[in-house]
Each structure stands twice: as C-alpha cells, then as structure tokens.
C-alpha cells in the first residue's frame, strides 16, 4: 500500500455528471493520481463496499460525495464514508441542495413508482412492480428502498465542505484539488469547516458581462418568445426570469454569458436561509404594476413558480417537500 493519502468518490442520488466533470479537469487528473491513492471510486474502478469497511476510520483523506440521499443504501454509504473519511465534501448541487432529483420531493413515492413503471416512460408489458425483497431458489434478493423524501448529504451526516454547481466548473474543481495538494505539502491552510469552496462570495450578476439598469418588468416571457434576445442587455430586464441575482457566483456567469437565463444551479448566496424566497421577493419587487389584476397578468408569465424558484434548491429549502410527499 503506497504512503500516498487515500481519495474516494461516491455517486448517490444524482446523474453522475459531477463524476464526469472531474475528468474534465484534463491533465490535472494526473496530479490527482500523483498525489492520491484512489481507494474507492465505483464508476472508475472496481472497489467493493467491504473494501471500504475494511479500512480503519479516517483512513480516506478526501471524499468527494455527489448525489442526494434517496435510498437506505445511500444513507448506509453516507454514514460509512463519513466514518472512513477525514474530509467529506458535498460535491455538486445534488449533495449540497438536492438539485433536480430533489424535485421528486413534490410527489409521493407511490406516484414516483407509478409514473416510472406504469406509464409511457417504461415499456412494462407484464406490468411488473418492484418489491423490496423477492424469494428465488438461490435465496432472497433485496433492492434498496426509497425514503419518502430526498435529503441532502448534510441533512444525514456531518459535512466538512460544500462545492456547489451542477456540475461544479472544471476550473473550480482543479482549484480545489490544487488547494488540497498545497495543504498536503504544508503550503496552505484548510478553510474553516462548513464553508463553501470552489465558488464566489457574491451572485452571478457580479460576473455577468451584460449591462444592467433599473428594472421595470411589465411581462415575464419564455426566452424563445424574446426573439432576438439583445446580447448585451441583462436578460431579466428583457422579461426573461433569470435567477442570476440570487444564485451564488463562481461559474463565471456561464449561461447568461451565452444568452441563456441562469436557472440557479450554484444555489443561494452566502448566509441565505431560503433560495426560492429570495427570487419571489426580488421578482415581485420589480414587477411594474399596482392593480391586483395587472399584477396577476404579469405573474402569469411564470406558469410554474415552484419549479422556477426551487429547481435546484427544493430539498435544502425551509419547506423541503410538498405536503403530497409526506402528508397522508
């Protein structure tokens, strides 16, 4: 066993894009290989759970966990890797705030199963419905079961650092890896526990190249209905609901820079309690109407406010889930 510190990555309830974005750091992956001994990375190498259980506690220096906690298996691994890792990083929007998988908190598990297995999205001629355990001659087969709501990593175990982004930007990942390497070489200090790394302290508008003026919103429109979109003017001012003002900076305003409205994947700014509430109040404050009927007409331009304001942050918001998910 080499004396290099151990590195692990795990992929829970997420799309795996964060794992791929780690590869996007290009040759820097060689630095990782040079400085770390990859102990556990299911998508890249064939290590088993019992290999991790065999390690003593704290053996893994750095674990980048991406994905929310949806099944009892995710929960088990979260506790396991927490015990085994010195530094556990909630890597990417799913681990940090639930992200798109977290949107499932708007529906009950029964409905999720129904849609998944009994509607047009799945070819299921004999109408098979999955069960937690099933007897076969060889023995009992079990499958992980779904919790009623998806939880973020920090809502299950103690997390050392958070790296927002869906996925985190490659240049930010590279910067974090450099930082950890410098810490190993004693050349740098780890930031205080619980802080957000690989991102900025302000919001997307800070890095956005577009010109910003005083806002008078007389209508909200879908971006394809604003043709042509003025390339230099703030997207929100053109009536397209851009979440940039409330979304943490760090992505170098990747989407608005190329003419797409920010949808908020870097999550809330520092110290904000509820991301969606910030957008509700920001958009409502700049709607240019006084009569309720006029206001309604303008707000109709956002047909799905819950989706628009909580696309990434639902599981980490104050309410976390809809009554349909948990109330009988």
């Amino acid at each position: 066993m080499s004396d290099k510190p151990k590195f692990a990555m795990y992929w829970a309830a997420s799309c795996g894009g964060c794992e791929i974005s780690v590869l996007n750091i290009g040759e820097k992956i060689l630095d990782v290989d040079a400085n770390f001994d990859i102990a556990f990375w299911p998508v890249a190498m064939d290590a088993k759970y019992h290999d991790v259980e065999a390690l003593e506690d704290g053996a893994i220096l750095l674990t980048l966990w991406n994905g929310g906690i949806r099944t009892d298996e995710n929960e088990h691994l979260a506790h396991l890797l927490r015990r085994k890792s010195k530094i556990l990083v909630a890597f990417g929007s799913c681990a940090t705030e639930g992200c798109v998988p977290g949107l499932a908190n708007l529906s009950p598990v029964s409905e999720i199963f129904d849609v998944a297995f009994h509607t047009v999205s799945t070819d299921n001629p004999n109408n098979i419905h999955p069960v937690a355990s099933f007897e076969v001659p060889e023995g009992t087969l079990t499958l992980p079961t779904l919790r009623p709501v998806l939880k973020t990593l920090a809502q299950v175990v103690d997390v050392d650092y958070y790296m927002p982004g869906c996925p985190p930007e490659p240049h930010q990942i590279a910067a974090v890896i450099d930082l950890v390497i410098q810490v190993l070489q004693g050349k740098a200090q780890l930031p205080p526990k619980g802080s957000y790394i690989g991102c900025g302290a302000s919001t997307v508008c800070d890095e956005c190249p577009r010109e910003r003026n005083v806002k008078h919103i007389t209508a909200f429109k879908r971006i394809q209905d604003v043709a042509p979109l003025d390339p230099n003017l703030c997207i929100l001012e053109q009536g397209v609901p851009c979440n940039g003002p409330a979304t943490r900076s760090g992505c170098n305003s990747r989407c608005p820079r190329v003419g797409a409205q920010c949808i908020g994947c870097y999550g809330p700014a520092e110290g904000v309690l509820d991301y969606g509430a910030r957008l509700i109040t920001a958009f409502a404050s700049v709607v240019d109407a006084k009569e309720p009927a006029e206001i309604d007409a303008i707000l109709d331009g956002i047909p799905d406010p819950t989706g628009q304001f909580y696309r990434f942050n639902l599981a980490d918001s104050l309410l976390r889930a809809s009554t349909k998910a948990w109330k009988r």
Partner: protein
Amino acid sequence: MSEKFEPVIVGFTCNWCSYRAADAAGTARIKYEPNVRLIRLMCSGRLDPTFVMKALAGGADGVLITGCHPGDCHYIEQNYKALRRFMLLRRTLKGFGVEPERIKLVWASAAEGMKLAHEIDAFVDEVRKLGPLNWPKWENESNPAEVLEVTA
C-alpha cells in the same frame, strides 16, 4: 388533541397603520380570537417571503400579513411591493401543497380596530376549517428512518 382544532397563526403587521389598528382594538376592548401572534415590522414592505416559509415550517398553520391601505403607506408606496410579493408567494406555495387560503393579506388603517378584529376572526375560522398544517420538524429528528416510515 382538544376536540376543537385551535390553529396557531403568525401575524406580521406594519408599525404605522395595522399595528395601531391592533392597539385601537385593544383600547376599545374588542374581543377577537387569540390564535394570532403578531410580529411588528416597520412596514409591510419589510415582509420577506422567507419569514412566511419559516413560520409555516416552524409549526404555524397560517400566516396573516397586514399593512396600510394602498396610498396610505407611511413610506408612500411600499405596501404595493408587499401586495406583489404576497401574490407571487401564494402561487409558489401552491406548488408545496400549501392551500393559498392559509396566507392572508389585510389592509387596515389606524382607525380600523374593529375591522382588523373581524378579519382575524374570519381568518382563524378559515384556517380552522383547513385543519392543522403540521409541517415536519425536519432538523430535530433524531434518526430520519424512524420519523419517515419506509415505503415501497
């Protein structure tokens, strides 16, 4: 549980008109339902939707927001912003399955103690009919599994 469900309602008033309306109801000894607990802000424009969500997540069954009549705002026009935020907030809460009737906006001038008392009584009745909201206390559960029963 007592046979009659007594909702807990958090109320946010502005300091100028609606808080004084509550005071006026007091000095006039007008009796109204005790379910509303008022928090005084400087203006209805100070109301942040986060306050409403925090109250609902913290166990409130309804939230009452009061302010001055449009045109009477001590800060000229800030109650219009409160109105717009209230309207967008109710639409968003619908997505969370929270009935829009659990959040209410009432304009009351400093002289309308009686009106505010009636609005409170009506609102308490409405929320009583909707029944308890019972938002889960997510943060202080000891073990998530125990609280949320596993379902297939």
